[in-house]
């Protein structure tokens, strides 16, 4: 088993009186896909936003590469090598693939854009991910399919020597073949040694692509187990009830919510 690259210890987060995250322990390992599942309102998005620096945590520790770090904003997270691919993609339709991948971090030669350098780097990254679905890196994003857009958004996150990539429902809006493309890409990210966090509602995707499954239930980490030790119905029970047989949270009479 590889070393944890990112781990959270006892993280708490409240919005006013609402206690959203209770003592969360969560580990992301390099070279593995960790699925983060849970019902609506379980705290998945909040947890991702805490890692991405959008929400500061109230208490608890975040370790990156074994060292405690403080993430105060998206830029801190990006500086550590944590990239988030949001559900709504965050691509500009009127720009082409290269322009989108380098948006906000354009490479310059003098005070002009270094188009050649950016185009080559974009193609190297896409090639390293075995992405062969884009006709030309100068294609405007508006003419790409949903799967291709998601691919570009993920490749954008990889471009920056990132170590951890968080994917928020990357296949939610995709068809069958396009979902296939994106899941293959998720696997390749892990094979390249990145720590990948996959948030998804689709159990088939999760069981197929992930190495470990972390289940959130009402703001608590119900279980964080290797995927091969779980089956479909156990994951569903963990999501809906917080426990499944011996797995998960203790009986509800002990739990205080």
């Amino acid at each position, binding site marked *: 088993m590889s070393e944890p690259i990112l781990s959270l210890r006892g993280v708490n987060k409240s919005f006013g009186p609402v206690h959203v995250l209770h003592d969360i322990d969560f580990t992301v390992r390099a070279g593995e896909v960790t699925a983060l599942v849970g019902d609506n309102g379980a705290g998945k998005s909040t947890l991702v936003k805490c890692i991405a620096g959008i929400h500061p945590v109230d208490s608890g520790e975040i370790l990156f590469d074994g060292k405690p770090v403080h993430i105060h904003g998206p830029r801190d997270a990006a500086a550590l090598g944590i990239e988030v691919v949001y559900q709504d993609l965050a691509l500009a339709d009127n720009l082409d693939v290269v322009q989108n991948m380098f948006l906000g971090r354009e490479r310059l030669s003098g005070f002009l854009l270094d188009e*050649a350098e950016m185009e080559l780097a974009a193609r190297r990254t896409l090639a390293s991910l075995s992405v062969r679905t884009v006709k030309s890196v100068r294609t405007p994003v508006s003419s790409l399919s949903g799967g291709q857009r998601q691919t570009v958004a993920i490749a954008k996150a990889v471009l920056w020597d990132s170590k951890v990539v968080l994917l928020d429902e990357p296949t939610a809006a995709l068809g069958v*073949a396009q979902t296939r493309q994106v899941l293959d890409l998720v696997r390749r990210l892990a094979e390249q040694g990145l720590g990948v966090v996959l948030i998804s509602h689709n159990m088939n995707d999760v069981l197929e692509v992930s190495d470990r499954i972390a289940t959130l239930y009402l703001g608590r980490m119900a279980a964080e187990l290797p995927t091969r030790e779980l089956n479909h119905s156990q994951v569903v029970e963990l999501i809906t009830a917080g426990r499944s047989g011996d797995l998960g949270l203790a009986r509800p009479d002990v739990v205080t919510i």
Partner: protein
Amino acid sequence: MTESPTQPAGPKPTEPTPADSGPVAEALEAHAAADTAITDFGIDTTSRTTYEAIGDYWNRLRGGELGAVPALLGLTVLVVIFAIASGDFVSINNLANLLQQGAGPMIIAMGIVPVLLLGEIDLSAGTASGVAATLLALHFRDHGNLLGAMGDSMFYGFVVGLVLAALLAALLRLWIGVVGSLGAVAVLLLGVPANPYLEMLLAILVGVGIGCFTGFLVAKVGIPSFVVTLGLFIAWYGVILQLIGAAGTVSVRQSDVLFNVANDSLSVVGSWILFVVACGGYAAVVGLRHAARLRKGLVAQPTPLVLAKIVGVVVLGAVATWLLTLNRSPNPALTDISGVPYVVPIVLVLFVVGTFVLDRTRYGRHIYAVGGNTEAARRAGVNVPKIRMSVFIICSAVAAIGAIVYTSKVGSVDGNAGNGNTLLFAVGAAVIGGTSLFGGKGRVRDAVLGGLVLATVQNGLNLLGFQAAPVNIITGLVLLLAASVDALSRRRAAAR
């Protein structure tokens, strides 16, 4: 077109997986060349044959990405119609005159393009340019004594306002706005005697200051740009009326420099130097970039197409320069009028600088990104308020340059300077050229082409002896036609 690439749901049986490269994908590619949609075949191409490139272009046109085609077609049709209907239209004298008449609105249109790229609008650009023109004219008439020319309250109001504009620009760290506004304050307070170049500079600096105001209200206070600039449109009109009076005019004809900007031409030698610099520069930039892209193995146009473009521009430039260097005086025996009008290099410089900034700098890229998807740009670390504010500064400053040109053409400034149709013609020119009012799509080129179309309509109809009423009706219909072409093409693009 059977499949929608943007349709997220639904299985796509013909879609090959990434492993599906090789002969299958190549066959698909050959098949897909006939289709406008970019289907999921797995080859990253960098070069196309000329035939493929022309085919792709044709497919994009059919797919609704019309680019400059409607404006160019419209221009051609108009020229043919007017040439048949009026003997005077196709004369070198009228060609030069058309350029000089059209330059003012065209320049204002170029300035408004970055604002439209963000999906915003600046309704006040016209009257703001009028304010700049008014200060230019007053400074000239009263030999730099603006305190006397403007009256106490107006003068101190302007000084305080410009200092405030500088502070607002400093808040967003837009140093060009700070320098411009304080420069205008300095010219106001120093009262340096009249000098045509100083007056032109004053007009531009006042434009910068006005833009700081507009931009801050839109970008930081968060008022919709339509409302902000509607208010300022009315306010600046009031300022002009106060300074000049409804019936007053201030002449600048006595200054040769100010008058010649839009009424005189380069010498014949100067015209050919301009041709060599402009066309040589174009050929060098396009040719060298193409060579570099080929060398590095990047996505590039086919070489024959690039050469054809360069040859086309050089030949057109040479013919235009040659025509304009002929003597176009109505009485060739008495006077000699020849050479490329000064407005041509002015428009060219703005066009080149604008295109360069939008296409080749980080700032320009961020303008397109904010216009295309503000949220994506913000998440990518783009300073969205700063970009928003800056485009209004550009718009007002360039509108002030337009004001210099139209003031020079008429030779005076009156109480209606920049009022009425000025701004709407500028927006219309950009739209006719193909700039979208929804943001993200447009180029400086659009303003130039659209400006030429509008200038041609007005000039041609005037030569045919039409009065103001039909001229306005027809101009409006031309604009509507352009907007319809744009809307239909967009619907076609969306239906893919």
